[in-house]
C-alpha cells in the first residue's frame, strides 16, 4: 500500500489532496465535513481586512458540453464576506480539532506594507500551518488593486512576498494568476521575494456564455454581467503547461509547486505531480459532486502507485519534467502512421471525413465498391487526428515506421539558423 503522506514546505498532510481556497473552504462547517470525508488539507477561503466585502447573488456560470453539465465553471464571487474574527476563530478551532490536516490560510489585503503587517500575526495566532497569498482573483478584487492586479506585476509580487517573509514565520505560498503572458516571470519574482512555494493556476478571466434573450453575459446579475474566473476540467491543459514551465525553468527549478486547475481525479493529480507538483488543490470537482470524490482520489492514486511500484509521492514526483522540452528539440525523423483495425471499425467514417476535409486526404472510403476505411501511408503524416476523432477505443493506433535516426530543427538544413554539424 503506497504512502500518500506529503510534506509541503514543512506542512504535513496525510495525502496530497487539498481543497483550494474557494467557497468549499469558506467556514468551519464545510471544512470539517471535508476533513471527515478524508481531504488532506484546506486552503481557507481568502481573508481580507474588515469591513468584509459584499457578494452578489447569481455567482456561477457553467459551460456545458456534450451532456457534461460543468465542463468549465466561472465565478464572480469575491473573497470571504464574513467578519475577519469569525474566520480566525473558526480556523483556530478546526486546526485544534484536526491537527493532522494541513490548514493554510489564503490572504488578500491592500498592496501596502501596513495591511500585510497587520493581518499576518492574527493568522499566525490561530495555529494555521501556512499562508497563501491570493494574487490571482481576476474579478472584482482586481478592480480595487488586489488579486490579479498584483499578480500581473512581478515587482509587486516580489515586494509583498518579501513583506510576508519579513513579518511572519509561517511558510508562504504565492498563488499565481494565469492571466499573464509568461507565467515564469511572476514565479521568478515570487522566488526572489523569498516565497517558500507557488500555487497555480488561479482562475482564468472569462465570460461563460451570452444569454441571447437577455443579451447579457452569464451569470447575469439583474440584467448585467461581468468577467469572472474560469476553472474546472476545461482549464486543466493550461494549468499543466504553466506548472511545467515553472518546473523546467532554470531560475525556478526546485521551487515547490502546489498545483491547481481542473483537478478532479487521482489521474489528474498524478499528472501534475509528475510535472513536479508537491501536492494538488481541488475545487470545481468538489463543488460538482461533493467532498466524497476524495475517496476515489485516495484509493485510485494509491492503487496506481502500487501497480507502478512507487512507494511514496516523491518516487514519481517530477519524473515527466525532463521530457517537457522546446519544439526545436523534437526528433524530426520520428515517423508514425495511422493503422485502422478493421475488426474494431464501426464504419462511422469520421476518420475519413476529418482527414479528407481538414488534413491530408490519407484515408480512403471505399474498397471494391464497399464502405471501407483504410490509411494510405504515402499520404499519412502521422498527425493523430483520425485517432482522436475515432469513437472506438484502440481502433486507430499510430505505428512507428522510421529507422530510429535523429535530427531536430537545430541542425536541420531548412533552418537558416541551423548549428553547423
Amino acid at each position: 500500500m503506497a504512502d500518500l503522506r506529503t510534506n509541503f514546505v514543512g506542512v504535513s498532510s496525510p495525502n496530497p489532496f487539498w481543497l483550494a481556497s474557494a467557497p468549499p473552504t469558506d467556514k468551519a462547517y464545510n471544512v470539517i465535513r471535508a476533513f471527515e470525508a478524508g481531504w488532506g488539507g484546506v486552503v481557507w477561503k481568502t481573508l481580507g481586512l474588515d469591513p468584509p466585502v459584499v457578494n452578489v447573488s447569481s455567482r456561477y456560470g457553467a459551460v456545458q458540453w456534450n451532456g457534461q453539465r460543468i465542463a468549465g465553471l466561472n465565478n464572480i464571487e469575491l473573497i470571504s464576506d464574513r467578519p475577519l474574527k469569525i474566520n480566525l476563530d473558526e480556523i483556530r478551532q478546526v486546526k485544534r480539532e484536526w491537527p493532522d490536516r494541513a490548514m493554510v490560510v489564503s490572504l488578500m489585503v491592500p498592496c501596502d506594507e501596513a495591511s500585510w503587517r497587520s493581518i499576518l500575526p492574527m493568522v499566525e495566532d490561530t495555529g494555521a500551518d501556512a499562508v497563501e497569498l491570493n494574487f490571482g482573483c481576476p474579478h472584482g478584487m482586481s478592480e480595487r488593486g488586489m488579486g490579479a492586479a498584483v499578480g500581473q506585476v512581478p515587482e509587486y509580487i516580489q515586494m509583498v512576498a518579501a513583506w510576508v517573509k519579513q513579518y511572519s514565520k509561517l511558510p508562504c505560498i504565492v498563488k499565481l494568476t494565469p492571466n499573464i503572458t509568461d507565467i515564469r516571470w511572476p514565479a521568478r519574482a515570487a522566488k526572489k521575494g523569498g516565497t517558500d512555494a507557488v500555487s497555480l493556476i488561479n482562475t482564468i478571466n472569462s465570460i461563460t456564455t451570452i444569454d441571447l434573450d437577455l443579451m447579457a453575459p452569464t451569470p447575469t446579475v439583474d440584467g448585467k454581467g461581468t468577467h469572472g474566473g474560469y476553472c474546472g476540467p476545461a482549464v486543466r491543459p493550461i494549468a499543466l503547461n504553466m506548472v511545467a514551465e515553472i518546473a523546467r525553468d532554470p531560475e525556478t527549478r526546485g521551487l515547490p509547486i502546489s498545483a491547481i486547475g481542473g483537478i478532479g481525479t487521482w489521474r489528474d493529480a498524478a499528472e501534475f505531480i509528475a510535472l513536479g507538483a508537491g501536492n494538488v488543490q481541488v475545487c470545481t470537482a468538489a463543488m460538482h459532486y461533493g467532498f466524497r470524490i476524495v475517496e476515489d482520489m485516495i484509493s485510485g492514486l494509491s492503487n496506481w502507485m502500487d501497480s507502478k511500484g512507487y512507494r511514496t509521492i516523491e518516487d514519481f514526483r517530477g519524473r515527466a519534467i525532463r521530457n517537457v522540452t522546446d519544439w526545436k528539440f523534437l526528433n524530426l525523423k520520428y515517423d508514425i502512421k495511422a493503422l485502422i483495425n478493421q475488426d474494431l471499425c464501426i464504419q462511422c467514417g469520421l476518420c475519413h471525413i476529418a482527414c479528407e476535409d481538414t488534413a491530408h486526404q490519407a484515408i480512403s472510403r471505399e474498397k471494391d465498391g464497399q464502405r471501407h476505411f483504410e490509411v494510405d501511408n504515402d499520404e499519412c503524416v502521422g498527425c493523430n487526428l483520425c485517432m482522436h476523432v475515432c469513437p472506438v477505443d484502440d481502433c486507430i493506433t499510430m505505428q512507428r515506421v522510421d529507422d530510429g535516426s535523429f535530427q531536430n530543427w537545430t541542425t536541420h538544413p531548412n533552418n537558416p539558423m541551423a548549428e553547423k554539424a
Partner: protein
Amino acid sequence: MARKETGDIAAGRLDPAQLARNFSDVSPPLDRQRALIEASRCHFCFDAPCIQACPTAIDIPGFIRAISTDNLRGAALKILDANIFGGQCARVCPTEILCEGDCVRNSPEEKPVEIGALQRYATDWVIRDRVALFTRAAATGKRVAVVGAGPAGLSCAHALAMRGHEVEVFEARAKSGGLNEYGIAAYKVVDFSQHEVEWLLSIGGIRVHHGKALGRDLALSQLRRDFDAVFLAMGLAGVNAMGIGDERLPGVRDAVDFIEELRQAEDKARVPVGRRVVVIGGGNTAIDAAVQSKRLGAERVTLVYRRSAEAMSATDHEQAFATAEGVHVIHCAQPAELLSSHGVLSGVRFEHTRVDGSGRLQGCCEFFDLEADMLLKAIGQVLLTDGLSEGGIDLLRLEKGRIAVDANAATSLAGVWAGGDCVGGKTDLTVQSVADGKHAAAAIHEALTADREIQHG
C-alpha cells in the same frame, strides 16, 4: 364478469383507468434534456449508414446535430423536407430494421441512437403548433388527381402542391390518413394522425373529397380526361380469405377491421373482445391485433403462424413485444377447420406444418385445437381491382395482383402513376409509401413541365 363457455365476447373487460393506461402512448415523447443526451450519442457519421437505410433518405445525423444545438426548426425542416410524414414515421417505422438497425452504435455492448424518438422530438412541435415550413411555388395551372388519402397519396399531393400544381384527392373513407388513421395500433399513434393531415394540407392547393372510391364513385378514364395526371394510391382494401369454411361465422373477424374499430373508438371500453382470442398471421397487423386484444382484457391470446419465427414479416422487436405483452405465439401451424357450437365460433383446429426440401409449406397431418371466442384473421390484404378495368377491359397492367410501374412510378397507362401498397415489389411500410409518393410527384412534375415547354416552344 360472467364467463361463457362459448361465444364469450364482451366489451369493458377492464376498468377505465386500466384501459386508459393500456392505450396511452406506448413510447412517450422525449423531453428536451433526454433528447439532448440522446442526440449527443450520435457520432455524426460521414455518409451515414442510417441515411442509406431510410427509404426517404432523411439526413439523420444532420437533424440530430440540429437538435443538439436547439435548432429545432432546422431539424424539422431536414426531416419533413425528405419525408412529409416524418411525425408518423417517427412513431410507426420499424426503426430496428431501418435507420436504427444500421446505426454504427449497434454492438453487443451498445444500443443504437434512438433515431425514431429524436425524430418525433424534432417534429411534434411543428404539427402541434401548425408551423408553416413550406411555401408553394407559383401556380402552374396543372391539375392532378390523387386516388387515396393515405401516406402515398398525401405525400404525392403535398409535393405536387409545393410545385404549384392543383391537387384533388379522392378518398373512399370518411377520414384522410389511410393506414395511419385506420390501420395502426391505437397506442402507437395517440391523437396525432388527423392533426398531421391538417398540417400537411395547410400548404394549400390540395382538396380532399371523402367517400369517393375508384370503381364505385369515380372512373379512371374520367379522371384521365379531367386531369393532367393521375396518381393511384388506393392501398389494399381487400383481405385474403383462409379458405377453411364459412368465415362469416360469428366470432370470426378480419384483424384490420378490429384494429380500425379500436383505433376509431373514443371509448375503448365499448370495443368487444373475446375472452379467448386466436390471431392468425405473421405480420405487424397480426401483432397489433394480438397485443391490443390482450390490452383490451382478453384472458388468453394465441398468435398462430404457419411458418417459423424467422419467416414472420413482423420484426424481431414486434415479436418480442407481443411475447412480453403475454401473447402466446405458436409457429409452424396452419388453420384447418373452424369449430363452432350453437352457431358461433368455439375454436380453431390447426395442423402442424413443415417446410419441404424445395421450401414449400406442407401440412404434417397432425392436428390440435385451440378454444376461441374470437378469431382475428391477419393473413394479408389484396388490391381491389374494381376500378382498374372498365367495360371488362383491364386499363393497366398488373403484376402479382398489384399495379405494375416502371422506375418513374408510371403505370402502363399514359398519364397515370401509382405508388404505395397498391404497387408491389417492395416493403409495405408507411415510410416506403411516403417515398413512393414523393418519387412519383417528382416524375409527374417533370412530365407536366415538359408538356408546358412544348406548348410554349
